[in-house]
């Protein structure tokens, strides 16, 4: 598949397809299957009749600035006449001849309802520059060129982008549009134990939801980090995994994780920077630095860790929006305001030499 669609519009230097290349073209590739020929073709086509003279074709090509035209008789497509055919007529000084004598009658066509990829395949396999498009009654519906496909794909990609913008716009008005005494949006994610490939999915989804709702990017990032650490704790430590829940209100975000075991023996010790009970295997993956809970604490305004050995753990985290809380970072009041991204007071929590 890559080969077929790559060549016409998407030639890449070097030729070998890396994983990166594959994912780069994947959306375009998908679109080539999703879009139908009729969505990208030119439908207002200049046609000529077999009886027209080649001089007429010359004039038409010049005025309409085109390089080919379908030949239609009684509403049926009978051929195609191109610049090459015109040149042949010109070299022979035979412009008075009729189109019938010079047109190409061995026709390659596509259907209006075919996916665009069918046209790409034909362009790739043959040397033709344009393909007539037929409707379901075998009548000429339009014409398609490589340029039409490129434009169509770009327009579709642009539309994808605009859809995301619209989603964002709609979501950002959610709280304004819905009237109640107290509106909140609750997101829930079930976290499977030891499923590391799923790690980070809940946090990135929550972060994306917050951005769509119009949250400040820095707040969204802080929520993302806090949820990530809490989510990873469920994956690494919770016997049966657990639940991540985020409740979003206009002025506060309440996030919690709940699991049913094994529970933490000493929550105070668990909060100590560098303390971890993670196995050697998990540490090899880069987890178990003993900093997860500390990271959460740095990112949220309020945090409550409740646990009982044998019965489970509940972690509650709260982030206030709109400066409901005084400055959260008293250790670094000078930090530049423009990029004070992740809250950073890890110096205050001591060096993390845990490992």
């Amino acid at each position, binding site marked *: 598949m890559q080969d077929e669609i790559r060549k016409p519009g998407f030639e890449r230097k070097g030729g070998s397809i*890396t*994983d*990166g*290349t594959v*994912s*780069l073209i*994947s959306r375009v590739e998908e679109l080539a299957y999703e879009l139908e020929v009729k969505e990208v073709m030119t439908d207002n086509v200049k046609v000529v009749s077999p009886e027209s003279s080649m001089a007429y074709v010359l004039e038409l090509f010049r005025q309409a600035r085109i390089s080919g035209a379908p030949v239609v008789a009684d509403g049926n497509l009978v051929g195609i006449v191109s610049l090459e055919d015109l040149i042949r007529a010109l070299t022979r000084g035979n412009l008075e001849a009729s189109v019938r004598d010079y047109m190409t009658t061995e026709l390659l066509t596509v259907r209006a309802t075919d996916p665009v990829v069918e046209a790409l395949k034909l362009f790739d396999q043959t040397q033709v520059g344009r393909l007539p498009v037929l409707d379901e009654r075998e009548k000429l519906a339009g014409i398609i060129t490589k340029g039409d496909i490129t434009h169509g794909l770009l327009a579709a990609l642009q539309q994808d982008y605009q859809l995301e913008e619209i989603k964002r716009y709609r979501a950002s008005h959610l709280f304004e549009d819905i009237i109640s005494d107290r509106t909140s949006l609750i997101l829930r994610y079930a976290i499977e134990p030891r499923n*590391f*490939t799923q*790690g*980070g*999915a809940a*946090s*990135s989804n929550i*972060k994306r939801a917050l951005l769509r709702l119009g949250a400040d990017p820095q707040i969204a*990032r802080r929520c*993302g*980090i806090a949820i*990530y*650490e809490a989510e*990873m704790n469920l994956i690494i430590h919770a016997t049966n995994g657990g639940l991540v829940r985020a409740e979003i209100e206009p002025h506060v975000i309440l996030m919690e994780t709940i699991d049913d075991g094994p529970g933490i023996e000493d929550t105070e010790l668990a909060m100590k920077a560098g303390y971890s009970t993670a196995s050697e295997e998990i540490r090899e*993956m*880069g*987890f*178990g*630095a*003993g*900093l*997860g809970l*500390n*990271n959460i604490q*740095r990112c949220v305004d309020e945090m409550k860790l409740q646990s009982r050995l044998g019965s489970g753990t509940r972690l509650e985290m709260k982030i206030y929006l709109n400066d409901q809380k005084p400055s959260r970072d008293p250790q670094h009041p000078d930090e530049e305001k423009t*990029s004070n*991204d*992740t809250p*950073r007071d*890890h110096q205050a929590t001591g060096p*993390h030499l*845990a*490992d």
Partner: protein
Amino acid sequence: MTLQEIIKQLDLTLLTEQKDFSEVVPTCGYASDLLSCVMAGARHRAVWVTLQSHTNVVAVGALLELSAIIITEGATPDPDTISKANEEGVTLLLTEKPTFRVTGRLWELGLRDS
């Protein structure tokens, strides 16, 4: 210093999709293989140097909105990790060189830790 210059100077292999890296200007660098340390220490738009290559580095890169992740010692991530990185818009770069050498070069090029 743009990411494009860094890629060229360090001869890094791009694993994720091509972007206009001449527009990407990393704020600083960070090196660690412990994800929570990175969460705590790496800044927004930093370049992170690590030899971890499993799928969770992508989550970290996305959450911190890192400029790029340089994976050292040729520890090539699996295709799922790379496609996840593309989905999340995270740039993954690969080198055969060890972390110490890479960070040294980045420092020479003027990248600092904050």
